[in-house]
């Protein structure tokens, strides 16, 4: 189907009647996914958002429940967000990250009602990447600038119009009442050319990486590879697949809330035991954990790499510690046996 760019605002305004609509908006020098209250706030002319849209489904800080201590006990109010949402204009890599997060929050042992309720109530309208950034490497991770995995609709920008690819029934419902024309031959041809032109400049070699990581836990490579890392969470907090969290009670007097906050394996506090012992005492162990979690443990647990190649960690690292270079260095390292 075909959507004129001029129709976008009207369409978003229409969607807002039934949904909370999240879209990329310009904030300072960057783009972030925020809830919009008018269709014209959305800016689909962007390369990648600063913080991934994961925060729509897995907020930086969210109340799990609130409580109040009374004479005869405790009153609890669960805070499950059941509102219907749409994320418009997310990139295919970010859509793929949701499929990875699904595995974490929905397992045989535990279903996380906070994430899953939002997830089930959220429709994803993707936007293909006509010009992937030089830091993008999604194709190395099985994705692509126009990959449709996880999306309900995909918009392909062909200049003054979008070719709308309908991928699910939920996606089709969003177009109800729009009476969009079918894509003509010319539009299809332009879309095909746009897709072909969106070549990625970076490839990361992941072949054999997992089997290397399986045996290099004690390798001296970790002594050096982390050295310039500052131990901040700019990489993990702007990563669409990082999902570690901490839970705290914030109370005042007789009442308070239990709150889930993003946390990061890069912080020393993340693994600090109550006893004072820290099993990951230095930057070396913490950096190793980040690489291992994404490229080994996640593969062991979910049979998928926890990276979608969005390149945000590369752009945001204050010391230019580039994950592509880290992986290359690991790939070039001599394989040793997993013994100290």
């Amino acid at each position, binding site marked *: 189907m075909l959507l004129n760019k001029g129709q976008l605002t009207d369409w978003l305004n229409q969607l807002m009647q039934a949904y909370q609509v999240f879209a990329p908006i310009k904030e300072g020098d960057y783009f972030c996914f925020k809830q919009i209250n008018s269709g014209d706030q959305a800016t689909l002319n962007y390369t990648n958002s600063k913080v991934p849209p994961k925060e729509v489904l897995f907020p930086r800080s969210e109340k799990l429940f609130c409580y109040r201590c009374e004479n005869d006990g405790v009153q609890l109010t669960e805070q499950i967000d059941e509102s219907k949402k749409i994320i418009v204009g997310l990139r295919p890599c970010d859509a793929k990250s949701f499929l990875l997060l699904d595995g974490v929050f929905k397992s045989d042992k535990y279903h996380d009602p906070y994430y899953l309720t939002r997830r089930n109530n959220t429709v994803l309208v993707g936007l293909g990447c006509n010009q992937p950034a030089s830091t993008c490497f999604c194709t190395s991770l099985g994705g692509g600038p126009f990959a449709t995995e996880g999306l309900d609709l995909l918009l392909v920008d062909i200049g003054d119009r979008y070719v709308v690819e309908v991928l699910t029934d939920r996606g089709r419902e969003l177009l109800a009442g729009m009476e969009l024309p079918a894509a003509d031959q010319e539009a299809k041809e332009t879309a095909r050319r746009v897709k072909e032109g969106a070549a990625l400049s970076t490839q990361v070699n992941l072949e054999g990486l997992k089997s290397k990581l399986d045996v290099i836990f004690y390798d001296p490579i970790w002594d050096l590879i982390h050295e310039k890392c500052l131990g901040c969470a700019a990489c*993990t907090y702007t990563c669409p697949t990082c999902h570690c969290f901490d839970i705290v009670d914030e109370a005042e007097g007789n009442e308070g809330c239990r709150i889930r906050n993003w946390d990061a394996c890069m912080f020393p506090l993340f693994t600090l035991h109550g006893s004072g012992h820290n099993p990951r005492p230095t930057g070396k162990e913490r950096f190793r954990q980040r690489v291992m979690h994404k490229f080994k443990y996640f593969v062991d647990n979910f049979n998928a790499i926890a990276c979608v190649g969005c390149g945000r960690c590369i752009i945001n690292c204050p*010391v*230019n510690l580039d994950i592509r270079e880290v992986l290359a260095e690991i790939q070039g390292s001599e394989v040793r046996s997993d013994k100290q």
Partner: protein
Amino acid sequence: MSELTRAIQETAQKLLQNKEVELVVGFAEGSLPLRNTPCFVRQPEEAQRLVWGYGCENNLANYLRQRPEKVAVVAKGCDSRSIVELIKENQIDRNKLVVIGVPCRGMIDRKKVTRLLAGKELLEAEIRDGQVVLKGKEFSESVPLEQLLHDTCLTCQHPNPVLFDIMMGEPVPVKEADSFVDVANFEVKAPAEKRAYLIQELSRCIRCYACRQACPMCFCEECFVDCSMPQWLSKSSLNVQDNVFFQAVRALHLAGRCVDCGACDRACPMGIDLRTLTRKMVKDVQELFGYTAGVSLDQKPPLAAPINTTSPATFNQDGR
């Protein structure tokens, strides 16, 4: 720049060859245009990796605290001033440090480049004759270098290292005195306006603590924001006031210690203006105590507690 690169490489190689140091901390080529990256060299033959350029923006003093080995560091003006403060705070052993001083002509602010290119991606850059040629897909633009330097570099009064053992190249001219116009503009705002500005900026904070981690002077064993007993501020980002509180305490904690290197500001992935607060402290400390952090090893930090070590009776047993 290539002469400085060569000089740094040769010096580093010699220091390692003669076993005068075990490690040289400097900069290598980065993976992004206009970017250099901190680099750790331990073998003389690896000294070839070291470079000097307009992307050497990180403050390398951050990597020098409590090092067991003897280290040489490539230091521009601001790095050297942080080193001075860290020596005074017993974080660096001067006897185990060799400072390779490099006069600095300022570093390029990639955020300014991003703003200038307005959505177009920078793929390649070349610097010659005071001009930066920015290249990308189907564009090439030439911009005066001065326009792209960090604000910290534009007001910097100490581009030449204040402390060094070996100096690379000739000193660069020092700019006119810093007028602190930016801080003065902030000072004249009404309290409500200041508050609104800080809240607006810090509402973007994602509490990644890149600012804290990038600062050579932020080295408390336990940061007050991480402390849970007592809990000084909430761990959640639900309340923007707590982000303001975090930055306010950070800035106050750095008063008289901050050398205005801009590392916090550069590290922030959200582009938050952190410098207004830290600069306000720099200005206040200069006005109130006549002290500029990091310019002299002998000058006592003004906010250090005036403890007379020869008369322990100053404090009673409870520490009061």
